[in-house]
């Protein structure tokens, strides 16, 4: 038995002889070149050219002010993401497994996910003051809805045929959850965490700008108030790059941990 060939992956050759890396480099050079020109022209007194921003960034790295700022920014961010992760995944799974919890809380989370949650941050400050607690809450409030919704969808989207298979082979409800539903949902749950981290970055920056200036928010507000625009821009650019690199690393990790074909997305049926 068994003379059929297994599926072999089809290799896609790129049409252009130039490697994508070259195109990416050209894109960067163009972007920073235009920035430099715009800064020198200048389009605004408060818009520094790329070169000055880069120098300011180097000096802030050298004198340790950037590192200190990140140390204080990352604390509420990490605590907030951890809290939102535990609560959000737990809640999302509960919603996916129980019809009554779903009925009760799905509308709330659909609204929360669509609502501009940043608007709630002044209220948080009013209730919980200006300490780290408020900043953690700001991160949780922004990150939790997407984590909950992704976990919920992951559970709900389990292939019904796999669940029937589990029942047909005498699996218990517990085995069905542990061996079918959760492994099946794990990729979407992780994707939810990644989106939650992206929302968390937004949350922490808003919190540090709105509640009390600390960390990166402090660098931005302080340098803006003393009109040191290169330093202010350097702080802004650094958090953008930092967030982008973190999200990108999480995306790579996700592809490594949960390759699409292992999630059953590739095979038909």
């Amino acid at each position: 038995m068994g003379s059929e060939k297994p599926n072999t992956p089809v290799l896609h050759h790129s049409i252009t002889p130039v490697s994508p890396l070259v195109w990416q480099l050209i894109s960067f050079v163009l972007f920073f070149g235009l920035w430099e020109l715009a800064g020198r022209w200048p389009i605004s007194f408060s818009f520094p050219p790329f070169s000055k921003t880069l120098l300011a960034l180097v000096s802030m790295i050298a004198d340790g002010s950037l590192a200190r700022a990140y140390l204080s920014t990352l604390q509420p961010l990490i605590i907030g993401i951890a809290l939102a992760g535990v609560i959000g995944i737990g809640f999302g799974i509960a919603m996916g497994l129980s019809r009554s919890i779903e009925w009760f809380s799905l509308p709330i989370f659909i609204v929360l996910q669509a609502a501009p949650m940043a608007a709630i941050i002044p209220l948080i400050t009013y209730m919980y003051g200006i300490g780290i607690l408020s900043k953690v809450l700001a991160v949780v409030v922004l990150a939790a809805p997407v984590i909950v919704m992704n976990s919920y969808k992951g559970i709900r989207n389990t292939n019904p045929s796999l669940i029937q298979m589990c029942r047909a082979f005498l699996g218990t409800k517990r085995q069905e959850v542990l061996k079918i539903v959760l492994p099946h949902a794990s990729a979407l749950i992780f994707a939810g965490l990644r989106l939650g981290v992206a929302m968390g970055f937004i949350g922490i920056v808003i919190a540090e700008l709105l509640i009390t200036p600390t960390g990166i928010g402090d660098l931005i507000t302080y340098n803006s108030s003393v009109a040191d625009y290169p330093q202010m821009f350097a702080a802004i650019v650094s958090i953008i790059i930092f967030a982008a690199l973190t999200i990108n690393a999480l995306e790579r990790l996700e592809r490594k941990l949960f390759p699409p074909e292992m999630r059953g997305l590739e095979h038909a049926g």
Partner: protein
Amino acid sequence: MPADAIVEVKAVGKVYETGVEALAHIDLALPQGKLSTLLGPSGCGKTTLLKIIAGLIPPTRGEVWVKGKMVDGPGAERAFVFQDFALLPWGNVLRNVAFGLELRGLPEAQRYEIARRHIAEVGLTTFETSYPHQLSGGMRQRVGLARALTVDADIILMDEPFSSVDEQTRRKFQEELLDLLRHKNKTVIFVTHSIEEAAYLSDQIFLLSPRPGTISKIIQPNIDRHGRNPDEIRRDKNYLDTVDEIWQILKHYV
């Protein structure tokens, strides 16, 4: 009811929540050790009937009895082969084949040993560590069949197992299935919409007519398969007559 019936379907009817009547008053007796086919056009409720026998769907009316016990859910004496294979995409061939035993709590070494035997039977020994996405449709269904064999059920329920497999693979698979079952004394209930497949494989064919599903005729092909190769069987007069007889009935529903 015949004395040697292993599965008995008594006055089973199924009405879905949407109000659609899938099955109306089905009576069947399936003999031990034989291959019986439920054949009919799409929408005749043949898969529903198979899943009711499997205990995966409760009937609205009537009862199913298996080995003298009334069915109220899946049981150890029945194993199911799914149309869409239903393999864990994150499990390799070995884990998938052993999955039924894993659910029964058998230790890993023991269940892998049993699984390896059945993987060899379906000719996948060199693919033990492959994942479903690396296999062709035919190979995936071999995994599905091996999984059903590992739990050592007396009755194997097959829901259009070859429908997503290409024609050449399908023929080969049919031959292998007959070969495999000849030595095992398994009772097989096989759902298909292919007249040739039903005539080629079956000891007994239940023809279903649609809307709502009822048994319109029972046919016993009476083809002598012993010691004959597949091409001889496909030229057998009884085989050709059976195909024609079924077509004469089914063409009214198309």
